Structure formats: C-alpha cells, structure tokens
C-alpha cells in the first residue's frame, strides 16, 4: 500500500472520530516505527478498507439480522490522550475477583492504565505489556505473530481495529514455563463517547502452560454510545497448553461490541476456551478455535445470557486444518426480556485433516415469550476419515422439574432461578477456577433477578 493513501480524509472536521483515530494511526505510539514496518503497512492497508467500506450487516438463515445502523461512529472518539494515566476505572476493582494472579493489564478506553507482572515470572522471560510497548521493546517477537491469522478487510470495524488500535495487550510465555495463576487482561470503558479498539496478542511458546482471563467491562451509563471493536489472537506452539476464559459484561449502557477472536492450536498443543457473553447492547462475536498442526486438541465451551433489549450474535468456529486432531464444542445460552440471541456453531474440517474427531452441542433455554433465540449447528467436512457430529436442545422451562422443586418448598421464582443456574453448570463447572466461576454465577443470578417479573409473567401465562 503506497504511503499517503489516507491523505484525502485529513480535511475531516476536527474532534470527530475519523480525525482523532487517524492522527493516532499515523503518529501515535504504536504507529509503527523502525523495524515494525509491517505494522505501519497493515495500518495503512486497513485504513483504506475503513474508508471504502460501510458498517457491516450480518444476515443468518434469511431472517436473522445484526445491523449497526444505529451506531453513530462519527460521534465516538478513541482519544487515548484523554485517558488519565494510571487510573483504573472503578468497574474493574468492583468486578474482578480478589485472588492470586500472575499479572494484570488494564486498558481504559484507548489507553493502557495499569500493567503488573509477577517479578519472578518476568525473570523467567514472561512478557506482559501493552502491544504498543511490545512493538517498541520486543519488535521481532510481536511482528512475527501480529495479525498472522486475522484479516483486516472483512468489514469496516475489523479494518478500523487494524488501522486505529491503541494500547493493546501482549503476553508471551517462554518455552517450558508453567504458570498456575491467571494472567488478567482487562478492557474497560468508563463512559459513553468512546471507541475502544482493543488488540490482544498472546503467544504460548513450546510446552508452556498458563491461564488467561479476559474481562470486558463498562460502567453503566444512560445516555450516549460506546464501541468496543476488538481483535484477539492467541497462538500456542508445540505442546503448549492454555486455559482461556473471557468474562464479558458491558453493563447497561449502549455498548456495541464487534470483535474477532482467533486461537491457533499448534502441534500436540491444547486449548480450553470458555467465553461467557453476559451483557452488551449489541454484541457480535466471531470466535475461531483452530487446530492448525497435527496432534492439537481443544475444548470450546461457552455460555451466553441476554436480557432486556440486548442483541447477541455469536459465530463460533471449530476449525481443523490438519489431523489427527480433536475437538469438543459445548455451548449453553438463555434469553429473557425482549432480547435476541443467535448462536451459530460451525465445525469445519479442511481437506487433509484426517483422523479428526469432534463434537458440537448447543443447548438453549427461552425464558420469555418476547425473547428470540436461535441456535444453528453446521458441519462442513472436506475429509473422509473423520467423525464430526452435533446435537443439542432448544427448550423452555422444564415444568416437571419446577413442580418437583416447588413440592420441596421452593417458590416458583426460586425454582426457576435454580433451574436456569443449574442449566449453565455443565459448562461453568469446567472452568475449574473457583473465583471466576463464582463471578459468573453471581452475574447469572443478577440477570435472573432483574428479569424476575418477566419470567413470572411468562410462567403464569402458560
């Protein structure tokens, strides 16, 4: 991409999204200097796509639409300079469990405001820093993996992320290093008017073993909009093992989240990935867990719960590029209020990925007559010596279970609550991490409590 591609737009009115983000793309700390020419070139290429594309619309099965028409992108600013350095938003301290950790990095709006890493791990070569700093201090390592498997041109916000990202998170775990406590990566939005282009790059080197917990949080706000357009990539090299979990709760404000996440599992490596999508005005997630070298194995667990007028569109791909490989996908979701949730799970087995064995199951539960919930499993197999199947349930409340619990003295709302909480347990219990499990449980309970009237009305209408 020749330099100067972006020139025509510099004349855009000051203070608006375009100019602020453009400025940072071209002059900001992570703009790409010295040996990271690739980064600068990618930003420029992405910028071109940003200006020539419209906000995306996703359609599924002919009737499901995720549209960003209501998002006023020009009213949002990335403004990393406006973020007070070193100040961690309250929502972070309020939400994150107090527990031992290997490290933590927090980004507020457009800037990283907090980085900490266990010094003993730093000594052993573990790196945890902003992605901007990674390109400055560990340029070779960052460049070698950056955007290796992510695209920049599928839609406008993907291009925007690649062009405009600021701050970001970079984690590197060296060969053979085992870390018991989680690395915490936090993206927070402390108010409206923000476009946060989050960018995470994680590399687990040979036979390393570690946990990563990502938190996506926002303060509740009643007016205005905010955007998180994230790009996440994690690469596990030979024999590496990672347990990755994501806690997403954008609160009650009008937060849009359009993110792409890619996890690549290398030779004989293993990843257990559990996203929990628990709140956001409009959330579109493209989640891809790929076994890219022989012997790779993975467990893809997920849960979602939409309420009120939330809209969730999740597309999860269980991709096998080579065999032998293993996969096991298990998602559970529920919807209350007038919310809409659509989950599509795709098993894709590429040509040559022989001896792949994978299974996909999706279970959903509808808790309100006005909620809409779709679960679509699909299988795309281009190899013949494989096993791939799917199953699942789409359900309403199990009345016999409710009567059973009532007959033991629980009132109907309590019985329903228990049933829904229990519904998520088969997935949740596999987190194998008590503090995070408790956090997710309490969030599920809170969502149920706020939808209580709704669920009762639904129950009595039957």
């Amino acid at each position, binding site marked *: 991409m020749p330099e100067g591609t972006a020139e025509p737009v510099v004349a855009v009115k000051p203070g608006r999204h375009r100019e602020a983000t453009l400025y940072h793309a071209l002059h900001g700390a992570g703009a790409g200097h010295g040996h990271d020419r690739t980064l600068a070139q990618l930003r420029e290429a992405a910028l071109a796509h940003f200006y020539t594309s419209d906000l995306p619309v996703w359609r599924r099965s002919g009737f499901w639409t995720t549209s960003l028409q209501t998002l006023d992108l020009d009213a949002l600013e990335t403004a990393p300079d406006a973020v007070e350095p070193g100040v961690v938003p309250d929502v972070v301290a309020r939400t994150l469990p107090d527990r031992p950790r290997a490290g933590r990095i927090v980004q507020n709006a457009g800037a990283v405001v907090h980085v900490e890493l266990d010094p003993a791990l730093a000594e052993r070569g573990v790196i945890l820093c902003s992605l901007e700093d990674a390109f400055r201090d560990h340029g070779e390592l960052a460049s070698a993996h950056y955007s290796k498997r992510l695209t920049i041109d599928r839609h406008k916000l993907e291009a925007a992320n690649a062009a405009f990202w600021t701050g970001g998170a970079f984690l590197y775990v060296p060969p053979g290093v085992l870390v018991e406590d989680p690395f915490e990566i936090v993206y927070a939005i402390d108010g409206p008017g923000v476009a946060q282009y989050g960018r995470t790059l994680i590399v687990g080197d040979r036979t390393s073993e570690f946990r990563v917990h990502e938190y996506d949080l926002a303060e509740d706000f009643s007016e205005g909009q905010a955007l998180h357009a994230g790009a996440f990539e994690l690469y596990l090299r030979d024999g590496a093992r990672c347990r990755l979990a994501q806690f997403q709760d954008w609160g009650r404000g009008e937060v849009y989240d359009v993110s792409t996440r890619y996890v690549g599992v290398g030779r004989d490596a293993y990843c257990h990935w559990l996203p929990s999508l628990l709140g956001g005005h409009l959330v579109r997630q493209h989640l891809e867990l790929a076994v890219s070298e022989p012997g790779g194995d993975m467990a893809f667990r997920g849960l979602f719960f939409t309420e009120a007028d939330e809209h969730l569109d999740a597309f999860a791909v269980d991709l096998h590029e080579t065999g032998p490989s293993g996969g096991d996908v298990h998602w559970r979701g529920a919807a209350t209020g007038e919310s809409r949730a659509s989950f599509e799970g795709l098993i894709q087995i590429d040509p040559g990925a022989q001896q792949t064995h994978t299974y996909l199951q999706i279970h959903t539960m509808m808790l309100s007559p006005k909620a809409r919930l779709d679960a679509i499993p699909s299988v795309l197999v281009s190899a013949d010596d494989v096993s791939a199947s799917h199953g699942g349930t789409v359900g309403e409340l*199990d*009345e*016999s*279970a409710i*009567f*059973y*619990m*009532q*007959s*033991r*003295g*629980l*009132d*109907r709302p*309590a019985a329903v609550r*228990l*049933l829904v*909480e*229990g*519904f*998520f*347990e*088969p997935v*949740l*219990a596999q987190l194998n991490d008590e503090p995070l499990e408790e956090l997710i449980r309490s969030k599920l309970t809170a969502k149920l409590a706020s939808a209580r009237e709704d669920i009762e009305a639904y129950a009595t209408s039957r």
Partner: protein
Amino acid sequence: MADLEIRDLHVRIEEREILRGVDLDISRGEIHALMGPNGSGKSTLASTLLGHPAYEITEGTIVFKGEDITAAEPHERAHAGLFLAFQYPVSIPGVSVANFLRMAINAKREEPIQVKEFRTQLQHAIDLLDVDRSFTSRHLNDGFSGGEKKRAEILQMAMLAPDVAILDETDSGLDIDALRTVAEGVQRLHDEQGLGALIITHYQRILHYVEPEFVHILMDGRIVLEGGVELVERLENEGYDQIRQEVGAGA
C-alpha cells in the same frame, strides 16, 4: 379431626375425570397404604395433594391442619408440612443434593439454618439412609440409579421433616436391598419423629417392611375398600380382579 382431610375429591386431567370422589383422613403418626391397579388414579391423587398444575380439582376439598389448601401453591403445601416422594424423581443438573436441601429448608424459615445444625441433620439422615457422604455433593438425581433416586427422596424427607408424607410408588424398580433401606427409613421417621405416611403402591412388597395400620383400595377413581393390614394379605391371595368383582356393584 385428622391432620389431612380429603373430602369428595374429583380431579380431571385434560378433560378426563380420574378421581371421582375420594375421601381419606390421615394424621401424624399413622401409616396408611393406598393400593390399586394401574390406572386407578393413585398417582393422580399424589400429585393433586401437592398441587400439580396439570390436575384440575372440579369438586371437593383438601384440608391440612385445619387450613383449606385445595387451591394453595405447591410450596405453600410443603411449608405446611406435606411431602411427596416422587415415583420418578426429576434430575436437577448443577444443584448438589446438599445445596438443594439447604435451600428447601431455608425456604420455610425466617433465618437461614446454621451451618453446624444443617451438618448435624444431614449426617443423621445420611446414617439413616445408608448412603455415602459423597452422595450429598452430587447433582440432585443427575445420573443417579433408580435406587439412588429413591434414597435421595427419603433423605430429603428426613431433612424436611414433614407431618404427612405421600410416597408415590417409591418401591417400584427397587432391588430388595434398596427397598429395605427405603422402607426402614420411613419406619424410623415414623417411630422417631411421628411421621404420618400414605404409601402408594401397586404391590405388597414394601408393606413387608413398613406395616400400615390402615389400608385403602383405590379403583376407578374411588376408594372401594378399607381396612387394616389383613387387606394386604387378602390382596396377595385374591388379586385385584376378585376384589373388583366383589365391590363391582358399588363402584
């Protein structure tokens, strides 16, 4: 006045009348057996007594400890001291036996039960039912064998300490060891806590381990014959057909 008074109970499900005027009195400390052939309405009576929403009471009343509970919610009946041991206990994934019990106990208390008190009660129930301690940390009925489910029912009964329990074909599908454990559990709760019980069964088997004082025979939605434990022996010798012929004119 009996603790549980059922008067002229008529019950319909999906336009079909199942119970056609049942009268029954059960008090604390009494063990009753309700016997009858398949389809006579035994399970309908059990579900109706606990307020299952699918069963519509068209006539009659259910009075428990002086309160008319004919239209009460299931949990209100439970709080009043009624208990139903299910023929087919439902699995509740994600909820451990112990946690479920704690919730059920707390549901009818103002103050939550003390941890120590709960543990003591639970240990007592565990000993009574001859189950492994780890049993209570498993998810309720989830992946339980038939015998484990029935043990879990009686364990809950022991913990919730009802005044009157209805055991809906608790004996069905049990091997002899499980049957003995379950039956002895009921007998001990009767002896120690003064439990009143209505044991609903198709067979006589369970009644070899728990001896009823009162036996009622239900046919075609009505109680057609009542008596003492000698009725069980008669049934064993003669079978339902003989009795049906005998009471045929009245039914």
